[in-house]
């Protein structure tokens, strides 16, 4: 289903949601919940081809380009990463390449999850964002 809100509006909703948590514990419990409820990832695409390898968490990302829009399915072996993946998918699923390339992915930092995005090889999530941008650029 095509999104009804813009990327910026969806991001603003997430930032508002997160602003209600004043304890890290609540924030992480919410993320863990999101992670546990992430739409199942297709087993046949859980292969090396779709794997974004990190020293810490591994992320699988499958992209489909249909009717000028990008659709993402993703999974991770780490549950907090899965929670953040769920947020990323809610923001970027069904967007046009131009919309994706025009956004700055800064909402992850704005909701106080900067440490989950440390720019090291250790992090599958950073590579996931890079891959989403690359997929968008390839289809732009």
């Amino acid at each position, binding site marked *: 289903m095509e999104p009804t809100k813009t990327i910026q509006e969806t991001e603003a909703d997430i930032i508002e949601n997160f602003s209600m948590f004043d304890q*890290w*514990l609540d924030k*992480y*419990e919410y993320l863990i919940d999101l992670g546990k409820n992430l739409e199942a990832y297709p087993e046949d695409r859980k292969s090396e081809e779709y794997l974004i390898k990190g020293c*810490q*968490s591994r992320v699988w990302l499958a992209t489909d380009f249909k009717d000028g829009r990008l659709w993402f399915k993703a999974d991770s*072996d780490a*549950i*907090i990463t899965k929670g953040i993946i769920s947020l990323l998918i809610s923001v970027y699923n069904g967007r046009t390449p131009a919309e994706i390339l025009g956004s700055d992915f800064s909402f992850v930092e704005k909701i106080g999850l900067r440490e989950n995005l440390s720019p090291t090889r250790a992090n599958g999530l950073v590579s996931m964002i890079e891959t989403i941008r690359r997929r968008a650029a390839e289809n732009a």
Partner: protein
Amino acid sequence: MNVQDIRQHFPVLSEVLPGRGALVYLDNAATSQRPKEVLDKYLWLSNKVNANIHRAVHYLAAEATAQYEGARESVREFINAGSTKEIIFTSGTTASINTVAYSFGEAFIGRGDKIIVSQAEHHSNIVPWQMLAQRKGAEIQVLPVDDNGHLRVDLLPGMLDSRTKLVAVTHISNVLGLVNPVKEIIELAHEKGVPVLVDGAQGIVHEVVDVQALDCDFYVFSGHKMYAAPFTGVLYGKQPLLEKMPPFFGGGEMIASVSFENGTTYAPLPGKFEAGTQNLAGTPTLTDAINVCKQFRDKEIVANQQKITDYVLDQLMSDDRISLYGVPRGNIAKIPLFSFSVKGAHHEDLALILDKMGIAVRSGQMCAEPIMDRFGVTGMLRASFAPYNTMEEAEYFIKSLDRAIKMLV
């Protein structure tokens, strides 16, 4: 002396972290914290005594040289080397191993030769040998570990033959935390005339190292894990071997004479292996760090460490949710370093949640992918303690770990 006395000397230990509370630093195997004495020495050398060493005749150069060479004597005495010619300063364990891999390799390794490394090595004691093997057409042989993480020393005699040119083995694995029987390994290798390099990155921190008693051919370690400034390190090598090895880097202090016509000759040991400007403010802090290491041998401090080791070991071993890697047995002791995985909880998730509770632990492959593969995991969680950690911190860690697991599973 008690732990609280020690903690006064380490400024960072009283930090309160934003949004997390008091710091509980359990990532000491990655890098230790530094005491005021080391930080003061570093600043004093930078602010008051900055000059390049050895060559100039002015006051500052003489003082800087005295500090630098003083550290060499401190290290010699600390590991009981026969001579300061055998103490080469490097930027750390990795640089020390790379130096040996290049220089020993140039002198002694040829096509078809073999180098034995253990399965429990840090990448820094694997990759330089692989690079050497590739360069020379040599072969790497792997000494495996058993299910409890113990080196299969029983297999070593069968692996050693006339083509074996070196054994490179860690004193204490940064993942398993077991004190390997390096003396026995060295004896077995020497029976076949094979020299041994011991990676002492963790060993120097937790063991009393006597290189002459061990009879190791090389012993290498970093300063930053033993409370000294980062980018400092030591390569100990037996003098006759070092004499036969060509230099690794060229330039700066490592020459005797340079000529386009008559060729270049090299400086005597240890200068031959210390090319370029050295870590002028960092290396002298080894003297102060060594003093700290010696203070940590205090009876009360050692007893506290043992209490923490026994407590954490018991807690982790008796928890069905946890698999601990590196289980002590018989005369193989364990240092307070615990790598483990939790059924149904990812190491990264656990580390993130523990961080929120102020606890710094390591998660991931810990630069030791082969041992991760050995135990069939993509990573582990590691808590590593130092003498400045308290029993209260150990209890808080165990309680917090339980809480984190309950959030995730």
